[in-house]
């Protein structure tokens, strides 16, 4: 797996891909904004300015919103909340999906059918419905939203991991590992896990894009956290209520979501082209 030749070739493919560059740049920008929000933001996220609905000016870069908050500041802090929520929920999805997928693929038989059936049932629900159900069961809150988005993304990882484990499981080196007396846990960890890394990286990157959309969507519906938290979906919901007065406060969070999602999508495509040589040259 860790042949240096493959890695350097993958890296070369990655560097040459324009979508990977643009995507990486957008994702980097978004992460930088989130991490450095304290340094970059001219105000605190709950500092009130002088007036509501100020036009963009030197003091208020992107103007102020209906609560006199500085839109630029809150968009930066919003990156923090959105990214954090998305990363945690994708983490949940990878943990549950990866574990169940590995078990299903490795052991096969009734374990496999049971897990596959459950995933099929999960897929029979339209995505947003699962999220709404989880939220309603746990009471509207950030925890519920993160869990909901996590559960929503389990099938993607479960299926991919299962498929990869199935192809690797019966290769000679894995059989050799088993023949030497390795336990299933050891075999999965040491022999099979390395070949799962690449597909998971690709899917996680693409999954972060969807997760940002889903998190923002749920908080736009007003079922996450407090309404005045600096989060993109919240900000858009608030801005929508005052659309008759001004459009400005909606612009920054909306563009931020779009660019972040676009960034993760492009980066994921670039990574896929670089890391998955089988796909390479098929779809272009």
């Amino acid at each position, binding site marked *: 797996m860790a042949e240096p030749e493959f890695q350097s070739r993958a890296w070369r493919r990655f560097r040459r891909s324009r979508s990977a560059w643009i995507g990486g740049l957008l994702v980097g920008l978004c992460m930088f904004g989130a991490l450095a929000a304290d340094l970059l933001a001219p105000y605190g996220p709950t500092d009130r300015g002088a007036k509501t609905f100020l036009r963009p000016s030197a003091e208020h870069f992107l103007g102020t919103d209906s609560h006199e908050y500085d839109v630029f500041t809150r968009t930066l802090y919003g990156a923090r909340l959105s990214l954090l929520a998305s990363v945690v929920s994708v983490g949940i999805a990878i943990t549950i999906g990866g574990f169940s997928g590995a078990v299903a693929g490795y052991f096969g038989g009734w374990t496999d059918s049971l897990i596959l059936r459950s995933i099929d049932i999960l897929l029979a*629900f339209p995505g947003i419905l699962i999220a709404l*159900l989880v*939220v309603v069961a746990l009471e509207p809150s950030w925890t519920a939203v993160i869990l909901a988005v996590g559960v929503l993304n389990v099938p993607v990882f479960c299926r991919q991991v299962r498929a990869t484990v199935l192809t690797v499981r019966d290769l000679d080196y894995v059989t050799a590992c088993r023949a030497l007396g390795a336990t299933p846990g050891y075999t999965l960890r040491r022999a099979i896990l390395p070949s799962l890394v690449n597909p998971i990286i690709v899917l996680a990157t693409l999954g972060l894009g969807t997760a940002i959309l889903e998190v923002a969507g749920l908080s736009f519906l007003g079922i996450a956290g407090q309404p005045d938290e600096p989060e993109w979906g919240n900000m858009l919901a608030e801005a929508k209520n005052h659309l008759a007065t001004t459009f400005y406060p909606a612009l920054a969070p909306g563009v931020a979501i779009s660019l972040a999602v676009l960034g993760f999508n492009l980066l994921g495509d670039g990574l896929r082209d670089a890391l998955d040589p089988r796909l390479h040259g098929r779809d272009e």
Partner: protein
Amino acid sequence: MGRYLAGRLLQAVATILIAVVVVFLLIRLLPNNPVLSRFGQHAVPEQVAIEMARQGWDQPLLVQLKNFIASALGDGDLGESFFLNETVVEGIERTFPATLELALSALMLAVPLGVVAGVAAAVWRNRLPDYLCMSGSLLGVSVPVFFLGICLMFMFPQMPTRGRLPLGADFDASSGFIVIESLFRGRFDIFNAALRHLCLPAIALSTIPMAVIARITRSSMLDVLSADYVRTARAKGASPPRVVARHALPNAGIPITNIAGLQIGVLLTGAVLTETVFDWPGMGTHLVDAVRLSDYNVVQGCTLMIVTLFVAISLALDMIYLWLDPRIRFSGGADG
């Protein structure tokens, strides 16, 4: 063939049944007590107990489940709303036509435009139409529908942005389908107003399905256009439009039909966000309101309705698939 159909039908019924059980248990086993949330923070214990008994929530879970399924199947009774003065079924009947109207309008935009864009991208591959189509569809899946909705409202300030008809419009659609009913009753003023109200939400809702359809069309057209029989058709002198329309598109059509069909399900539920943006009085806003208020019976009823629709649509698609593709018909199953 018959066995495959029977199996598929059984699977659909099982899925719906399991969905019923999961939704039912999820709502009852988790910490959020539905009756408490109705009475707020200062609930009087006796009041809560009476209400629990009235709703039948004090009985053992299995008995409750049995009663629920029996009354749902028996007389289509899904319980009452806690907050609105109507039954769950009445709520669905009141809101579902609006959702269907919006979803079908969006589909009528998304399918033709998506297919045309995808075909153009495949025919002029790696040229301007391809780049436009591909970047457009990337944008379509990246921009959240609620932001797109807000942008549309800003760009077209003269268009109506709330609800299905202007306030105080003198029209009572008994079927719930305003556009069609107003046309049949000859109320062209209402027809016109309803169409105008439909425009922006339908455009916003159609973007994601359009992007998905365009991508699938492009890739399946690319597969087909490089096939031998297409080259043969070209060699025999068929004109390029004829090759695309008569030879390539029908064969590329199967995956497109499948995706387009799946989008109906997405449209019916994806409408949750779009409906919220445009205050569209459909099942999506109804469901979200119920989630906010913890109106459990409504959440349960709407969820089951949507899941059943979803399963029914995918079942219908498999049937269409079977009918469209003789290879599947004779090998005995859509999954191979």
